[in-house]
């Protein structure tokens, strides 16, 4: 029955991506030199970094000095029989001075490290973004934007969080060494005894770490799966509602979210089991000091102050260890994130300028395909040994059934992909021999899918030439018949387009993307179904304007509606990646091949109806 869902078959539905391991996409870029590479980002800040390190050292020394001052005060001013006049005051004063130095160095160190870190993060993000501007489209086709975004934002954010919560923990690590030194200087024997429990910590970590890490990675993966599903729901929400998939999706998503929850609970357990262990060790260390140290004090082998200092030191010694334990999840995330960021930076650039690429200043507008074979998947060629030439100033029409490879041809002219065999040349140069920038300057294109950016209509139309004046924009809009509707908008050319131009009709979007190509003012103009969503009347107006615009330029027009291509110099009929026919309209009509059939069908139905 209409519209009624019968639940006979197993559910064919998923939310979010199926590929759970990003590695499949990015490969293992991790080369074990993560830290070194991150350090190279600090290079521009070397002096700042050095002063910061200096102040960390000063800061650490003050931290170590505090208990020493207390020790000195106890031993020289407070213990019976050793009451020295004025020592206490001096000690207190020194203590406060130390506090001041501590404050100054702390402030300098933390703000400097913070500044450097933020700078490095911003630079990292920029480098990733810049790199993605150059990686090949075949990589981009395979990779969901959401995954890239989660690296550009999520992972950078994770590093940032780590920095905000744990930067001082790193300073504390330096402190660890300072404390160990101080302990040994004060009393070697007691120091050895106290620290004898530390190896235990390593053993515990050794057993615990691999398990914990597995749990963390799992949690992170569950998280990224859940986020992927959320992103999908947000992007496809209109389809979800149109297809009434809300309930099914909610149920599936609930499952994902629950898995995510369980994975995180497990990871949290792992993060926390360390806490009692560290605390027990702290307590044990203190107990050792009290028992052993106390007995030594008793036998007058040890000053009381030293014992007190030891107690303070031991407390401070385990503090950073404890806080590192508490922040283990941040750390773990930061490590994983750092690696994921490097992976993006390491994506190879398949389509790159040659070392000696030529900057093509002038282009006569010829386009030539010789023996081009190309496909997206190995073993599945889409274009097969294609040969054709568009002469300077000529307008060529490309027709053919859907999926025959028309759009792929335009992609090759732009060198979005490199051919498998043969060559594509423009203005006499192989596209692989010229810089991509200069290639782009000579080719303008209306893509089959009119993608617009958030921003004003004006910004969108002069996308290629950001400083072209309003007149150029207006005349381009007039040429494509967009001017009238733009003017009718409340803010005219300053109207802000929502994402992808959602507040315009599809035809209007197409017109703007058309105007955008015209403003680009290139020698070669490619129109891929540029008027598919536009009525014939408007199209006619566009064609009139185009007649002027194409003067002296080379054109490549792709269309299914054959009326669109009338007036082209030559027509190529493509089928399954091969040229089937080539010639003028009349020649092809006579041929009685695919073109003639398409042509007849374009009009035959009218005949059916009117007879």
């Amino acid at each position, binding site marked *: 029955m*209409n*519209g*009624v*869902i019968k639940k006979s078959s*197993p*559910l*064919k539905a998923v939310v979010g991506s199926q590929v759970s391991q990003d590695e499949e996409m990015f490969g293992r870029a991790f080369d074990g030199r993560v830290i070194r590479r991150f350090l190279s980002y600090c290079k521009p800040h070397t002096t700042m970094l050095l002063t910061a390190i200096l102040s960390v050292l000063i800061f650490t020394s003050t931290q170590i000095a*505090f208990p020493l001052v*207390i020790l000195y005060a*106890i031993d020289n*001013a407070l*213990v019976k029989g050793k009451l020295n006049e004025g020592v206490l005051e001096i000690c207190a004063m020194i203590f*406060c001075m130390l*506090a001041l130095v*501590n404050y100054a160095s702390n*402030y300098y160190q*933390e703000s400097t490290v*913070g500044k450097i870190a933020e700078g490095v993060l911003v630079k990292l993000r920029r480098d990733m*973004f*810049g790199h*993605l*501007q150059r990686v090949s*489209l075949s990589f981009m086709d395979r990779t969901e934007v*959401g995954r890239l975004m989660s690296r550009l934002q999520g992972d950078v954010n994770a590093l940032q969080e780590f920095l905000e*919560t744990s930067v001082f923990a790193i300073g504390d690590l330096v402190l660890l060494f300072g404390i160990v030194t101080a302990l040994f200087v004060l009393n070697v024997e007691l120091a050895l005894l106290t620290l004898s429990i530390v190896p235990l910590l390593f053993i515990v970590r050794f057993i615990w770490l691999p398990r914990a890490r597995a749990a963390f990675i799992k949690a992170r993966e569950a998280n990224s799966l859940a986020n992927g599903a*959320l992103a999908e*729901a947000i992007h496809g*929400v209109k*389809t979800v509602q*149109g*297809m*009434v998939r*809300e309930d099914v999706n909610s149920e599936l998503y609930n499952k994902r979210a629950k898995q995510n929850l369980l994975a995180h609970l497990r990871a949290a357990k792992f993060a926390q*089991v360390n*806490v009692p262990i560290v605390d*027990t060790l702290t307590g*044990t260390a203190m*107990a050792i000091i009290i028992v052993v140290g106390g007995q030594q*004090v*008793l036998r007058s082998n040890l000053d*009381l102050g030293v*014992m*007190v200092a030891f107690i303070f030191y031991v*407390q401070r010694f385990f503090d950073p260890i404890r806080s590192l334990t508490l922040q283990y999840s941040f750390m773990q995330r930061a490590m994983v994130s750092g690696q994921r960021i490097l992976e993006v930076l390491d994506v190879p650039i398949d389509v790159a300028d040659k070392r000696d690429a030529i900057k093509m200043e002038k282009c006569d507008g010829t386009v030539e395909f010789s023996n081009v074979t190309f496909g997206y998947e190995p073993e599945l060629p889409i274009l097969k040994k294609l040969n054709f030439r568009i002469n300077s100033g000529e307008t060529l029409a490309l*027709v053919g*059934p*859907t999926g025959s490879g028309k759009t792929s041809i335009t992609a090759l002219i*732009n060198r979005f992909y490199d051919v498998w065999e043969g060559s594509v040349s423009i203005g006499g140069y192989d596209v692989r021999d010229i810089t991509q*920038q200069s290639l782009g300057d000579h080719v303008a294109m209306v893509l089959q899918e009119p993608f617009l950016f958030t921003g004003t209509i004006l910004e969108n139309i002069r996308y290629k030439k950001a400083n072209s004046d309003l007149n150029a924009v207006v005349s381009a809009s007039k040429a494509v018949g967009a001017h009238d509707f733009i003017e009718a908008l409340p803010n005219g050319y300053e*109207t802000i387009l929502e994402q*992808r131009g959602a507040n315009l009709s*599809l*035809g209007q979007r197409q017109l703007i993307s058309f105007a955008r190509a015209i403003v680009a003012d290139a020698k070669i103009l490619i129109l891929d*179904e540029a008027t598919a969503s536009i*009525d*014939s*009347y408007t199209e*006619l107006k566009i064609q009139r304007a185009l007649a002027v615009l194409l*003067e002296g330029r080379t054109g490549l027009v792709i269309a299914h509606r054959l009326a669109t291509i009338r007036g082209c110099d030559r027509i190529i009929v493509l089928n399954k990646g091969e040229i089937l026919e080539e010639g003028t309209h009349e020649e092809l009509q006579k041929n009685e091949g695919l073109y003639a059939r398409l042509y007849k069908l374009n009009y035959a*139905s009218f005949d059916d109806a009117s007879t």
Partner: protein
Amino acid sequence: MTKVDTHNSIPEKHDGLSTESRSDQFSKGNKLELKLLLRIIKMGFAHRYRMVIAILATAGASIFQLFIPRYVGDAVDNAQGLLALNNSATTNAEEALFFAAFMIVTLSVARGLLTMLQNYHGEAIGHCIGYELRVAFYDKIQKLSFDFHDKVHTGDLITRGMLDLEGVRMFISTGVVRLAMLIVLVGGATALMITNDILLTFLALSFVPFVAWKSSAARLRLRWLWLLMQDRLGVITRLMEENLNGIRVVRAFTAEKYELKKFDIASANILQTAINRVKVRVGSTTVMSFSFFLAMGFVLWIGGQKVINDEISVGKLAEFLAFMTILQMPVRQIGMLVNSFARASTCGSRLFEIIDRVPNVYDTPNASELTIGEGTLKFENVSFSFTKDNRKVEVLRNINFSVGAGETLGIVGPPGSGKSTVAQLAPRFYDVDSGTIYINDQDIREISIESLRRFVCVIQQDSFLFTASIENNTAYGNPWVDDDEILSANQASQFHEHVDQLPLKYKTLVGERGVSLSGGQRQRLSIARGLVTEPAIIIFDDSTASIDAVTERLIRKNLDESSHTRGTIIISHRLTSLMHAKEILFVDKGEIIERGSHEQLISLKGKYFELYQLQTRSGSNGVSLKKGRADC
């Protein structure tokens, strides 16, 4: 009944959310903030048993920790006592030392275990809240109607659902639990110390008021910076996301440099805010530490004098100092605490803004199921407008038509004339401003949205495909469909032939939004997806624009076979697609200016006739693309 003028309530700001300027929001922020934080805490209390454990464990851990200095003090005193007595009754004192050591170990173990419980349950509550919010957010996103999604950038929503959610989630573990711990520690320390010496206690805690004042000031600054940061992050997210989505445009226009320039501006803003945030954070935390150490210095000084004057023992002084050491870590963490509060309130407000939002199109309380019967779709005097920059722009005016089962209605018209809008109104993606839409004589606002949309299916003009297999995409509207039906739907839409030659057949992934398909293939897949739901009324919104005439004809033939039980609306620019319709509407600027069958419209010799002529003349009367050149 119909909703009351909800359009006016749509904020005019570009991101479609948060109408008020940031400073406005900020000025009345305090009360709101409290409410918000309480709301999060209340969500935490819903997990009663975890919350009780967390609180008890926090209190227990802090108290145990507080007793440790006492035994340290005892031990020091004992050791010193032994010194003073010198070697006579050592066993007694040694026993005391052992006892102190034993107590310290016991307390440490107990404290460790309780801290573990405290942290684990604190975090677990956070994760549970995160889970609840996640699901609520997801459900709300799915429910919010088109008018909302038109205005809100997907990047913005994703940031809220991912990053802001984290901020709220972590509030329990990094904010609430820590704050509780701090309070218990400081309170407990006060209680314990005050029995020893009042003056020293005051000195030891003299830093607390300063820290409280400083941190609340920092919290305000930080909250403001978080808001700013969130905005700026939003900008850069949008920028990057669009760049990646529109990568073909970026590449085709070699606009990488331009894009990087935009990025750099956004990035510089972020860097500046981030550095400001570092300054505020570091400025406040370091000065807090400083005040703490000063207090410690005073304790040493005054306490030392007291020892000299024999008012207290050295052990007591050591105890005071040990107390302070215990407080050192939490004091250092106040920075994080403050950050957590600031973050939770900004993130929370952004998250709850969505979760609390009421969709503008919703079921009436007693919405009934649609009964399809004859299945006639009828528009009666329908007018509709979009809100643009707070102004209403009328898009449809007084539209009247009806389509019965087995009938076909065609709609033509120039771009932007309102054809797609008609298609969006039928399944109630938007509500009409005036007039009524009926299906089988039931006002669509009075039947449940779910049943309505099951019967009315729109094949959208720009089809959205999911990053899934062809099979799952086809079955999107009816995931329980069996393989045969998937096959026959794809055969009907002429897509099967292509699928069949793919190595993985129906299991082939189509890439994001279907990038690995050609334009026409995407359209055919989305037609198949619509057919699978077997709707009673199907609307093709220009959904064969990228399909060649031969293929289209085949599709149409296949569809004709099943169309006598369903109502069909075809929107197209190609007259051959819809000329067989019973009635054709010519829409211009939101009004029907011509209507009738193909023959009637031809004989009318109006706009439709003009189109007809343009599409039938084989070019000889058309224009040439080249001035002065012969037509082809």
